[in-house]
């Protein structure tokens, strides 16, 4: 958002003036991530994950495009071509480990980014569109990650594809034909692998497109901030450059350190050993589990073990799993509290932390074998998950009495508002 006090782009060099008249791309950059974009001065480190997510997307696209130069999407050679990358392609192991762990890093960053949104009410008016586009990106990421995991054509690739496409067969009447149409066969095979590769290559660029819309929508109203109070005056903001470029800069370094520790020193810590066994349609693995970032939703899927009313258990699980994410689309309208930040919402804040714990429990159960006591624990945890979004959030937002808000961002930072100039320093 362009606040009236934002710096204006004034190219001094004749070449830049010439450029500005023909294609004002430098002006766009200046106003988007340069000195011309004013941002609340009080953003904490939870607000760094958007940039990190963008970095992850870039890492994935660049490493992925190079990997695609060496990979062969054919069931006969897919597994071997992955090993060819690991052994015979120069720096191939770094590309592949970087890409596989890059997916995990992307999801860690995105989960932090989403929960930041839950805590600080980033989804609330007037930023609903930013939030909606964000949920779209998350769904696209899940699809892309799933498709990508199938490509090495290991045991978990194959059986993961079997299970996930099997979800579609739970749909009444059209389920089985739909699944066969999606797979191009009765089971995952060459046709499926080929189209999965094609879509896995395509979707990141769709994500990139939606990311651009997400940032565009964000810049219409500007970022939220930990107080949830809107920007009022010049003293509430700082320019993106150099303040947030500097802050993002060093957190990018910190992120790269943690990410690189995985890539170079424990590249398989987050993967499943079974995916180093070539796909074998005749041998089902003892435990089929997706990658860790799907565990909370996998736990919800498996929590529905009994038929309910006229709905079979499997269909209930599928509906619940999708609803668990789709409900986020409605969040701006379910949470009617005018106060954005959980910092000033004592009741909501407690439930927020219960949700964090709940999702951690779901994740643990999703990665555990489908046996007791994990099934019962995941049922109780799923129960809370649904209560939280569908029932607790709407009710809390109408009955809660929020704490008093600071007068302004400046007051929250300095202890006094810059406007009442001579106020005592806190």
């Amino acid at each position, binding site marked *: 958002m362009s606040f009236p006090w934002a710096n204006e782009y004034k190219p001094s060099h004749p070449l830049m003036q010439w450029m500005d008249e023909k294609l004002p791309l430098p002006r766009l950059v200046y106003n988007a991530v340069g000195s011309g974009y004013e941002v609340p001065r009080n953003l904490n480190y939870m607000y760094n994950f958007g940039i990190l997510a963008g970095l992850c997307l870039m890492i994935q696209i660049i490493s992925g495009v190079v990997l695609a130069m060496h990979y062969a999407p054919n069931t006969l050679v897919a597994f*071997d071509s992955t*090993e060819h990358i*690991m*052994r015979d392609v120069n720096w191939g*192991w770094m590309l592949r*480990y970087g890409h596989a762990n890059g997916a995990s890093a992307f999801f860690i960053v995105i989960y932090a980014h989403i929960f930041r949104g839950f805590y600080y009410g980033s989804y609330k008016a007037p930023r609903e569109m930013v939030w909606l586009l964000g949920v779209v990106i998350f769904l696209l990421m899940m699809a892309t990650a799933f498709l990508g995991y199938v490509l090495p054509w290991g045991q978990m690739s194959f059986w993961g594809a079997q299970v996930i496409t099997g979800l579609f067969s739970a749909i009444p009447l059209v389920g089985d034909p739909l699944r066969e149409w999606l797979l191009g066969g009765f089971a995952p095979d060459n046709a499926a692998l080929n189209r999965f590769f094609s879509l896995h290559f395509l979707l990141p660029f769709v994500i990139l497109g939606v990311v651009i819309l997400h940032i565009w929508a964000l810049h219409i109203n500007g970022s939220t901030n930990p107080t949830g109070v809107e920007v009022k005056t010049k003293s509430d903001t700082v320019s993106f450059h*150099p*303040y947030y470029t*500097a*802050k993002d*800069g*060093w957190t*990018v*370094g*910190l992120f*790269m*350190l943690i990410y*690189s*520790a995985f890539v*170079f*020193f424990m590249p*398989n810590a987050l993967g499943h*050993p*079974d995916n*180093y*066994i070539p796909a074998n349609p005749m041998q089902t693995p*003892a435990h089929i589990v997706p990658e860790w970032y799907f565990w909370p939703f996998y736990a919800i899927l498996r*929590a*529905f*073990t*009994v038929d*309910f009313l006229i*709905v079979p*258990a499997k269909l*209930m699980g599928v509906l*619940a799993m999708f*609803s668990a994410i789709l*409900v986020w689309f*409605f969040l701006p*309208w*379910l949470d*009617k509290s005018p106060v954005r930040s959980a910092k000033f919402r004592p009741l909501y804040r407690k439930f927020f932390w219960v949700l964090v714990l709940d999702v951690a429990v779901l994740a643990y159960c999703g990665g555990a074998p489908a*046996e*007791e*006591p994990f*099934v*019962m624990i995941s*049922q*109780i945890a*799923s*129960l809370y998950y*649904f*209560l939280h*979004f*569908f*029932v607790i959030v*709407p*009710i809390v937002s109408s009955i809660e009495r929020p704490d008093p808000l600071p007068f302004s961002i400046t007051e929250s*930072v*300095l202890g006094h508002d810059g406007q009442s100039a001579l106020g005592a320093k806190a």
Partner: protein
Amino acid sequence: MIRIFSILVGAFFSLALLLAVLTGAYSYVTEPPAKTVEATFYEHPEKLALASDGVFGKFDRQQLQRGFQVYKEVCAACHSLKHVAFRDLSALGYNEAEVKAIAASYTVNAQDPLTGEFKDRPGMAADKFPPVVYAGKGVPPDLSLITKSRHGGAAYIHSLLIGYSEQPAELIKAFPDAKTPDGLYYNRYFPTLNLSMPAPITSEGQVTYGDGTKATVDQMSADVSAFLVWTAEPELEKRRQTGLWWMGFLLFTTVLAYMAYRNIWAEKKGH
């Protein structure tokens, strides 16, 4: 309106879950799941210390060569190593002539570039280890990736190789139906306790090491496990070495970036 609808949807899923958890709890109480024989007698792999462990670990070339010898003389009777090429063996410390000699000791079925027909010829450094035809029932797994494709990695392989025994008497007593079937062999480190592979390394001195190392069963098992770490992760040393340089560089730039950040924000915090 949307909130009433939401509460109804929430109630729908919640009731289904409530029903599910009650059903589950009821059957858990009425028919508690019996303890399985695997849960009682399976053991996690013993720790195995290898030179390649840890951030600064490097392969022990002597051990890898011994492990290769065990593979060649014992495992290779049934297990292939198809992702590894003879040329890769130079990483174990063999010189060019030795690599060529090892390759030539194998027979490779390959296409003759002049006639186009497939025929047997001695292996060359550029060839991969040829497929192994197993005469018995089943397909013994390829060993190239075995330490990455099993929980526990090298420690699991080592433990499995030394873990064969008769079925314990307590097992038969507690689970009379769990007697090891004919053609399978009992091993407490195998997840289902019984596997089709008979103990491959059975007696001391089964392999005669050139470097004078005493070939105990434990030593041979550890050596071949170390070798299989290398076949699965031939890039391991280069990866860690690159990683250390890269992390050092990152640490340096991150500290610089942090100082720049502190500097830029110095007068902005207001405190």
